[in-house]
């Protein structure tokens, strides 16, 4: 039995739920509004406390955002590989990009690229999709780290 690549893409897309969209919106909006505070507490939490910022609250918000992301990613690659998919795009983009904001966009773009390549790769090789994306991402990570 053979289905075409666009059909595979559509099947994958149809797995997106309203819940995913809502979580994505929450993520983007929270990071948009709290960007400078998130940067401050990630860099130096001790100093961020001096202007009486609600440091703990912001920190828990950050953890919640990470949890949301993990929940969405687990459905794509499963529990074990979620760490790889979460960290590799960021680890690759930090090589090329210095600023945190640009790095976020860079990592998101890389993730998208990985996803598209992964769909195509697992389609032509008929390998399990979750593992393929992580192998792909890890390969990119090691190559970029070796070259730059």
């Amino acid at each position, binding site marked *: 039995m053979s289905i075409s690549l666009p059909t595979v893409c559509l099947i994958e897309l149809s797995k997106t739920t309203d819940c995913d969209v809502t979580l994505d919106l929450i993520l983007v909006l929270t990071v948009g509004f709290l960007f400078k*505070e998130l940067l*401050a507490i990630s860099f130096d939490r*001790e100093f961020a406390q001096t*202007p*009486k910022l609600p440091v703990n609250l912001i920190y828990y918000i950050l953890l919640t955002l990470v949890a949301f992301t993990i929940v969405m990613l687990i459905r794509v690659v499963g529990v074990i590989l979620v760490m790889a998919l979460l960290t590799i795009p960021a680890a690759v983009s930090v090589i090329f990009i210095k600023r945190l904001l640009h790095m976020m966009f860079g990592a998101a773009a890389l993730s998208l690229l990985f996803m598209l390549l992964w769909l195509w790769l697992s389609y032509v090789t008929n390998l399990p999709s979750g593992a393929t994306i992580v192998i792909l991402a890890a390969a990119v990570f090691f190559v970029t780290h070796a070259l730059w």
Partner: protein
Amino acid sequence: MNRPDLNFPATVLDVVLIGRLNRSNLTKPYSEADKKAALEALKAMGLGLEGPKDELIGKLSGGERQRVFIARALATEPKLLLLDEATLSVDRRLDTRFREFLNELKNKMTIIVVTHDISALFKYVDKIACLNRRLYYKESKQITQEMWMEAYQCHVDIIAHGLPHRVIEDY
């Protein structure tokens, strides 16, 4: 509490701007005034426009990084500035410039400088206190010989600055 993470992708300007955070600009972007204050603080620390404001904080040398952190403290526009060996890993020329800058600042805020380096007692200080278990303080710019002996049990002959200025009285 954790120390600053030096591998963090934050530029020098990002770090100094953290000094401008407060409750009223929570969820809002930094204003132009914030950016101006941050750049001014950097300039005061000798890291001006030509300086590494877009450089990653982890790429700087120890002395430069210390200057960035002092700039961050200055950017908060504090009423009281406590400097504990603040210019320890900073070169002499910048140290002098920093003292001159503190001299301008002292009209706006109280500045307390803690140092082990006697020659760091600079001509701009208004009051000197010696501390060794006990605080020896005479509400003056001079350290008396008794004060000195009592606190540190050793003689000091001369402390030279650019302009001759006596902080130890004759004996």
